[in-house]
């Protein structure tokens, strides 16, 4: 057991920078969720069950507008689609983690979890369930707590515009977009998606600008000449 305890403690230590980096966004999520019409319990439920920062922010952005429910779910799915690559890449290195435990581990496969697991594997350590959960649980528990604290705080603010709260998501999303700039075709993709979303916003209207703009960006990526570049899976800037 002591070996497993060590692995768990090692994972907890590895998680601490991520816990700190994610903190402002966990709190911000709770506050903005309430600002966009979710209840405190709903904000906590979303952090506890979705556990994917960027997509949660996209979700509550759409909760605030009159958007069909399926489109909100689809947008969350679209933002999280990158995780398919993570589980494809990491799954092969999780041979030590059997059956249902692997199914549980995949629930916690956030961007930093993926990055840390890849880094640990790169250093020659086998991926154990003890290390994986030692890394994942502190991030998860604190993330859920922050949603609750943020929501309590957010529900006390009467005029979010004065504090700029209604505009923080746009700044946050801009930061995430820039965080992906190491990727192949980043500039043409972002330009196409930006122009596409603005045109669609005028011609078709919200919320279709999200799907149509994203399709424009993805189409550009598919049309670009293929370069023999490895799939990127680094953590980028997303805390969770």
């Amino acid at each position: 057991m002591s070996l497993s305890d060590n692995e768990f403690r090692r994972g907890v230590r590895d998680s601490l920078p991520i816990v700190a980096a994610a903190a402002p966004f966990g709190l911000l999520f709770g506050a903005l969720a309430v600002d966009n019409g979710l209840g405190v319990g709903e904000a906590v439920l979303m952090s506890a069950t979705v556990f994917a920062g960027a997509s949660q922010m996209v979700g509550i952005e759409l909760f605030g507008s009159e958007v069909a429910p399926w489109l909100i779910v689809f947008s969350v799915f679209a933002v999280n689609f990158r995780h398919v690559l993570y589980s494809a890449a990491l799954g092969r290195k999780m041979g030590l983690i059997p059956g249902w435990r692997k199914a549980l581990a995949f629930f916690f496969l956030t961007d930093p979890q993926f990055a840390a697991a890849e880094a640990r594997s790169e250093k020659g350590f086998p991926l154990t369930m003890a290390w994986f959960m030692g890394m994942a649980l502190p991030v998860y528990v604190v993330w859920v707590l922050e949603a609750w604290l943020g929501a309590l705080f957010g529900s006390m603010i009467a005029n979010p515009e004065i504090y700029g709260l209604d505009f923080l998501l746009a700044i946050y999303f801009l930061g995430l977009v820039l965080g992906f700039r190491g990727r192949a075709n980043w500039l043409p993709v972002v330009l196409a998606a930006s122009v596409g979303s603005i045109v669609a916003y005028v011609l078709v209207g919200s919320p279709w600008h999200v799907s149509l703009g994203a399709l424009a960006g993805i189409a550009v990526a598919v049309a670009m000449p293929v370069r023999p570049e490895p799939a990127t899976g680094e953590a980028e800037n997303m805390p969770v």
Partner: protein
Amino acid sequence: MSAVPVNIWIILASALVTYLTRCGGYLLLSRFSRIPPRVDAALNAVPAAVLATLVAPAAVFNGTAEALTLAICLVLGLRIPMMAMFAVGWALIVVLRASGI
């Protein structure tokens, strides 16, 4: 009417599709020895493309304060860490709005 509010269903469905992306790659893609390059390019482009569609209209269809904030953040974000850019952006939007621009 349903006892469970629609928000709860949206959240639970979002959780389900998120979980599917987190195990789906292992279940499906790991059976192939490698991902076709154009599929890989499309998957790689998804997050930046989706997120850009949430920023561009916010910069264009709001006021001067909002456009200016995002423009400055864009330049800053290429040079300083995201958290610092975020903090500056937050301060900017508050100050610019208060100044009545």
